[in-house]
């Protein structure tokens, strides 16, 4: 009964909620570390996926442009980081210089891909971006000859971890008598970045630019007739999405310490797309939930289904990797067929339901 709770009270409740979430997020890695450091790493990966999914959400969810080669921008960011901070070229630039370079280069790639293709109808854009993703991967695989740039399929190893002042994110440190491991440090760094990305997404959506994206998504002809320069606004979505991908890629490089073209296949693009679709295209909170679910569920399956199969059948019938992919496939199909708006209703939908009740 919302009528009984006055506005002041509600605001206080909201703040209390924020504080609780903040505390939970702050102590989460230490709690997870009790279960196993692997779970801290899994959480970090999940945050990276939230990052990626929110970037793709700008392109697919807000502007309605189906980008199936999104992972290419992730790859660009990852390789920029790897090349500028590893023994490969013997360059060791600090991460706060590399991340913007990666973002900018990914953005340039986004504009290069978008300029000729954004006037095409949506399904053509989808297939061209799919091809683009493949091209980037083929180049990464082959740019080892005649000049060794990417080191080919072997990938690049010994990538520098993030360092801020004396804090090395790859090692364990004692802080006030508590052992803080590398993954835990990365967790906080990623959490900060993620909060920034979430804030940017939320603010963009509820802005003049965000509305223009949604107008393009809903009806391009009408959007143009309302004075929106649809070409520029689509390009903007593409470029912004790409730069998010670039930053996420850089972080991925730093955390993993090793990258190879294998990490940037179509499968990854589909996975990020599945996260956006599951959460509800254009719905920031839904997309975050989608990314978290699709990052954790396969891992939980890995730890449960594998032993269960061995216990029941005596051997492994379905590899967890296969189950994971089937999960993504079914998520895409079933969501589109039965809940195209995603698992959580969007804010507009909610407002509409409220105004109807009123």
């Amino acid at each position: 009964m919302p009528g009984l709770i006055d506005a002041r009270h509600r605001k206080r409740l909201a703040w209390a909620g924020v504080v609780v979430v903040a505390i939970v997020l702050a102590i989460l890695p230490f709690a997870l570390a009790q279960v196993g450091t692997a779970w801290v790493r899994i959480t970090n990966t999940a945050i990276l996926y939230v990052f990626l999914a929110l970037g793709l959400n700008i392109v697919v969810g807000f502007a309605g442009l189906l980008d199936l080669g999104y992972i290419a921008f992730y790859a660009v960011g990852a390789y920029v980081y790897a090349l500028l901070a590893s023994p490969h070229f013997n360059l060791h630039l600090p991460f706060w210089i590399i991340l913007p370079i990666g973002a900018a280069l990914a953005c340039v790639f986004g504009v290069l891909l978008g300029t000729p293709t954004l006037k095409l109808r949506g399904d053509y854009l989808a297939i061209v971006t799919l091809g683009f993703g493949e091209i980037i991967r083929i180049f990464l695989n082959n740019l080892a000859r005649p000049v060794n740039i990417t080191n080919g399929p072997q990938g690049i190893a010994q990538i520098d971890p993030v360092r801020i002042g004396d804090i090395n994110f790859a090692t364990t440190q004692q802080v006030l008598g508590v052992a803080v491991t590398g993954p835990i440090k990365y967790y906080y760094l990623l959490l900060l970045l993620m909060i920034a990305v979430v804030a940017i997404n939320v603010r963009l959506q509820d802005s003049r630019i965000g509305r223009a994206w949604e107008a393009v998504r809903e009806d391009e002809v009408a959007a143009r007739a309302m004075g929106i320069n649809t070409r520029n606004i689509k390009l903007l979505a593409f470029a912004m999405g790409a730069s998010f991908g670039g930053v996420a890629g850089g972080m991925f490089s730093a955390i993993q310490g090793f990258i190879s073209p294998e990490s940037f296949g179509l499968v990854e693009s589909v996975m990020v797309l599945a996260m956006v679709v599951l959460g509800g295209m254009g719905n920031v909170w839904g997309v975050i939930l989608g990314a978290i679910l699709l990052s954790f569920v396969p891992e939980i399956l890995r730890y449960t289904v594998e032993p269960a199969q061995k216990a029941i059948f005596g051997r492994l019938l379905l590899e967890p990797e296969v189950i994971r992919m089937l999960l993504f496939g079914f998520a895409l199909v079933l969501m589109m067929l039965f809940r195209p708006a995603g698992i959580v209703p969007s804010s507009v939908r909610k407002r509409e339901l409220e105004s109807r009740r009123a």
Partner: protein
Amino acid sequence: MDTFLQQIINGLTLGSVYAIVALGYTMVYGIIQLINFAHGEVVMIGAMVAYSTIVALSGGTGLPPALVLASGVAAAIPVCMAVGYALERVAYRPLRHAPRLAPLITAIGLSIILQHLALIVWSRNPLPYPQIIATVTYQITATAGGATITNVQIAIIGGSLATMALLLFLVYRTKLGIAMRAVAQNQQVAGLMGIDINRVISLTFVIGAGLAAIAGVMVGSYYGIAHYQMGFILGLKAFSAAVLGGIGNLGGAMLGGLLLGIIEALGAGYVGDLTNLCNLSGWSTALAQRCAVDSNLTLFGSNYQDVFAFLVLIAVLVFRPSGLLGERVSDRA
């Protein structure tokens, strides 16, 4: 000149496979203006089913090899048709009036599902196609070591020509063909004329899937392997071929397929030499010295073969979206 001729022959072989797959894309597009993303997976399923049949029958049954191969095709076609039918029913029909993004996304989901079901049924590893028919190589130029053509290549080119002829007959000379063309022109009116639109659309998917089955067997026999991910790149290339020819246009798909095959083969054959930095040795002594040690300073070798199809696709979409024989595709009001 012999290299050139050889690449043309290789290109025609590959191109006729692309053409058959491209027909599947173009037929579906022509009738419901939708890109059937999962079409490549149907090709893969065809290759896999035929593989299993051939392996099962060639193990000591004493059947003549040609009959074994034919059984493989005969087994692949109905399975693929069933898959094609199911795709349309499950993924596309319920979303026929949904926003454009929706069927694309379900199609991608289905691609992933089909790939991994195939992985479960067959294997994660590439499956070697049994060489049941011995490869015979025919010399087609006078000089020894010149261009050649194999019996497999002849069979693929001949088989696709026959398949295409059959399809053209079906579309232009039968009642079903008329119905298909009518639905492609105007669904509502076709419906009013008593045509069962759903049935026609289903049949279009089924026919396209039948073609895909044939293409799957051809690809498997030509490369000698089948793999659960083989459909993805193949599908993309065939789609590029359909766009090159003008999507929605049967003749365009055939032309686009053959052209793309030839472009790829020539690209693989020549781009490596053309982009070899050693060609520039005359300009730089440092380069000349380097080339004396290693004469292969190729920028883009044949390992970039897969890139050509996409470059063709992007170039066509940018400069002539209607393709060689088709109508305009970009939407402007």
